[in-house]
């Protein structure tokens, strides 16, 4: 089967690709830098680590790198340019040594299989929990044995011996030492018994007892495992994926057991944010009993790293294309073609001049500023002059808006120069672009912002841009996408995403209404002539009602706000809102700010930067649903 694709950007869920070569070719190893940071502070190994993100964040891909197939591919292709970087990262993580020997056996288990169905059995809660633990134990054992065989190709189950302490595991109906085949059979029988209970149409009379302990982690430790009469030298890493697919009680009992037990096992748990409870999402975050990597939060704090990663992903994917378009970033023009928009830019600054005249023509206060700006005309391009004039317009509005006694002295030019900062420049550019229909959403940096720190979201936009590049190539046109082309394509995608939400998300009607109202509100706040929340508003923070009725976040439990909570939970779980913590106000008070996902900002012509938000009471937010 061909390992090259026409448009590799359209391949999603690369962790599901059967070929490790293809997966690793598309995988950007820079994402493993997050794990290196955890390793440096001693929180990566011998620990329970949660890897969380919204769908498409890259959790499963991180786990797949540690599976035997991937490790073997890297070990056998250390010098291959495609894999060298990934190999070096894994070396830093002590998963592979310098000679290519594999030091870690990743054991992957998906929680999407059958566990939740146990809840439907007509048995007691205790029995359900025991069956659930039994199934986990069985699968941990089976998956570990499979993983060991995958790593050691000349080994079969008979050659694997488990020699645990009979004293420690006296409650099990197996005796040690036991070979892999017998252990596999024993675990498989447990799995079959659970399935029999699940598949039975009638009440099960000989129900499996189940297990009250998750002993399999301690059992399948390297110290207990021998191959060919020698103890194994690889560490075992247990990886659970999609734990959000467990039932609420299953997930709770699973995590509680692991965190309370606190044994020094390598256990990684990957899950979507939707699994998290209100306290995690809406409350202030208290001390945790485990370590967490929230991918989106990490990218938020180190956006330059995300840029490197997605740039790497983009270039790798472009190289894999069967068409002769071997790069991605190189064909995205970062700036507008000023000549094309010359007329509009002139119209823009002429309008600004008219507006400024209307605002400030009645007194001398701003004459110094106005003259200074006018003098710049010959030294600046039309674009620069238009931005400058728009900035001036904003500053005049701000000044006029301040309620202060003014003696109407002419304002010094130094004051103007001080206020002409980059943030104001960005706001001015935003205003004049939107007002004059000049492309604003273009360039690789904006594309990275549009991803809202989610790799799949980046690919969904980049995929269409790349498709357009391919179309241009085959039509014998210049491959480059100019700013106008990019914006047109990106807006079409955002529009399409908006329309499909109705069938994708729970509580879709009220959620869409809420987002629509939030976007409209943000537009209103952003486009005030004095740009008070420069560079623009696209988020909100929830203010606790000060009517004395609620303490802290207890308003969330008021049934009045059930629908609002459902909307907010949905928005967070499906990455329609992004949560960020910021400090503002008295004594640097901490706020959880909920920002619109950047693609929604694009849809509603809002700026892509973070920072601008408004405080809202829950009752005000509730009105956005009605």
């Amino acid at each position: 089967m061909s390992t090259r694709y026409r448009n590799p950007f359209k391949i999603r869920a690369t962790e599901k690709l059967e070929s490790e070569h293809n997966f690793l070719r598309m995988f950007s190893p820079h994402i493993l830098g997050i794990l290196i940071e955890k390793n440096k502070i001693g929180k990566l190994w011998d620990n329970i680590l949660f890897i969380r993100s919204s769908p498409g964040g890259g959790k499963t891909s991180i786990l797949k790198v540690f599976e035997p197939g991937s490790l073997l591919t890297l070990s056998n292709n250390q010098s291959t340019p495609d894999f060298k970087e990934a190999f070096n990262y894994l070396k830093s993580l002590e998963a592979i040594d310098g000679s290519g020997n594999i030091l870690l056996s990743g054991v992957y288990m998906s929680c999407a299989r059958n566990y939740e169905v146990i809840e439907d059995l007509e048995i007691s809660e205790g029995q359900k929990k025991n069956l659930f633990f039994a199934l986990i134990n069985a699968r941990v054992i089976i998956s570990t044995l499979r993983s060991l065989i995958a790593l050691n190709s000349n080994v079969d189950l008979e050659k694997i011996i488990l020699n645990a302490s009979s004293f420690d595991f006296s409650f099990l109906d197996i005796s040690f030492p036991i070979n892999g085949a017998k252990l596999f059979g024993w675990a498989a029988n447990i799995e079959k018994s659970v399935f029999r209970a699940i598949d039975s149409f009638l009440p099960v009379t000989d129900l499996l007892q189940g297990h009250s302990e998750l002993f399999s982690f301690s059992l399948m430790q390297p110290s207990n495992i021998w191959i060919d009469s020698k103890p194994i030298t690889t560490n075992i890493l247990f990886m659970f994926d999609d734990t959000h697919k467990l039932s609420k009680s299953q997930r709770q009992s699973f995590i509680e057991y692991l965190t309370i037990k606190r044994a020094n096992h390598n256990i990684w748990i990957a899950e979507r944010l939707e699994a998290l409870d209100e306290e995690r999402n809406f409350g202030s975050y208290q001390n945790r009993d485990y370590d967490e990597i929230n991918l989106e939060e990490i990218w938020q704090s180190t956006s330059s790293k995300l840029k490197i990663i997605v740039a790497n992903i983009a270039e790798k994917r472009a190289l894999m294309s069967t068409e002769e378009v071997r790069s991605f970033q190189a064909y995205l023009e970062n700036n507008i073609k000023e000549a094309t928009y010359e007329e509009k830019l002139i119209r823009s600054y002429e309008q600004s001049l008219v507006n400024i005249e209307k605002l400030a023509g009645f007194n001398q206060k701003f004459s110094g500023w106005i003259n200074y700006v006018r003098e710049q005309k010959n030294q600046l391009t039309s674009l620069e002059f238009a931005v400058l004039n728009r900035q001036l317009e904003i500053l005049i509005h701000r000044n006029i808006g301040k309620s202060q006694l003014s003696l109407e002295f002419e304002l010094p030019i130094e004051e103007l120069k001080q206020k002409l900062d980059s943030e104001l420049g960005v706001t001015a550019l935003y205003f004049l672009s939107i007002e004059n229909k000049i492309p604003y959403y273009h360039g690789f940096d904006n594309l990275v912002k549009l991803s809202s720190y989610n790799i799949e979201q980046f690919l969904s936009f980049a995929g269409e841009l790349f498709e357009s590049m391919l179309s241009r190539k085959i039509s014998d046109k210049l491959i480059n996408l100019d700013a106008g082309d990019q914006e047109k394509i990106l807006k079409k995608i955002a529009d399409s995403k908006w329309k499909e939400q109705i069938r994708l998300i729970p509580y879709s009607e009220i959620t869409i209404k809420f987002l629509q109202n939030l976007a409209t509100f943000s537009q209103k706040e952003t486009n005030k002539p004095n740009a008070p929340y420069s560079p623009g508003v696209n988020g909100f923070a929830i203010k606790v009602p000060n009517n004395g009725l609620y303490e802290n976040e207890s308003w969330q439990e008021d049934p009045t706000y059930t629908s609002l909570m459902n909307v907010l939970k949905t928005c967070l779980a499906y990455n329609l809102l992004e949560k960020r913590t910021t400090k503002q106000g008295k004594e640097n008070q901490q706020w959880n700010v909920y920002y619109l996902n950047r693609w929604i900002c694009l849809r509603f012509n809002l700026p892509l930067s973070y920072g601008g938000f408004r405080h809202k009471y829950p009752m005000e937010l509730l009105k956005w649903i009605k």
Partner: protein
Amino acid sequence: MRTALAERLLIKVMNWSIEEVTIERPLIQAMAKLKYDEYQQFSPGIRFTESLAQWLSQFNEDERKVAYNFIKSNLIFISNQQIVHLVSICFAEKINPLLLAKAAKQKNELPYRVRKIYNSKEYQEIKRRSLFLGISDGAKIDLLRRTSGISNEQVFSSYYISSEKKDDLLRELQKDEYPGKFNSVYLIDDFTGSGLSYARIEDGKQTGKVIKFLNLVFDLDPTTRDSLVLPELLNKENLDFHIIFYVARKASVEYLQEQIENWRITNHIQFNFTIDAIQFIGENFKEEMLTNSNLVSLSKSYIKKAIIDRHFIKGKHERYYLGFDECALPLILHHNTPNNALPLLWWYPEDETFRGLFPRITRHRE
């Protein structure tokens, strides 16, 4: 590389903008990869995209849009995989229910007691005394046998059976402790569009593959050398006769039923018969084609009377540009396009004045 050239040609032919290329190209590649590239009658070096580009280039600009939209929206392509699927479910869907029904009747058993009927000796006998014959090689009788669990000794790829083979079949039947003849016969074929190949009136007489078969079975055609084979193989007095198509037009099945009924009446012969298909093609497809006036007009412009040959005249042919018997089917079979399909799809005359998108095999033989 070749595909890229074909795509370039297609883009020029259709005069697509970049936006249109972005939409259409992935679709064409998907259609080609999924099914259309497997068409077995393309010339060497030609695949779907190349053929599409060549086909569309024959039309003028407006006509190309009509033709392309027809391919995108209306074409039915039955792939090899789909036929294999139909073959593999044929026994379970069509044959076994008949066997079970017969066994239930014989046992005087309630028809829904399937397991009981299945395990009965009546069922085993009825099944073993069934003969499965292919009408053409499209019947894939070998695959049917393997997916049905029926014996090799009750299957043959044609209804023209030699005397030696007849003796073999009867000998094996006897060995299985079922002396005597076969009680049921199943004629299997892959496709019928009009039914005319199987039964029709020619020179005032009924003819066609099925009619010939019946004439042989009931010994009404003593002129053939092996005329005594089928009567010796099959129990004429108590015969159940079944025809099964993998794909068929509903109208053609109804037509065949009528023809066989007429044959029965004319020849005063009684036997049970059924005609069925696993996948029916409804009349709505023909109606859709006929209501597309642009498409009909296109067909009229490019398909010439030269299409009418000695096979074509066996069916209705006043509107010859609608295909054999004016069926106007938007249908391609992976191994060949039936002549009931719109000729725009398959016609490729000797003088090469027109080239169908999926050329039919008759062209290539010549």
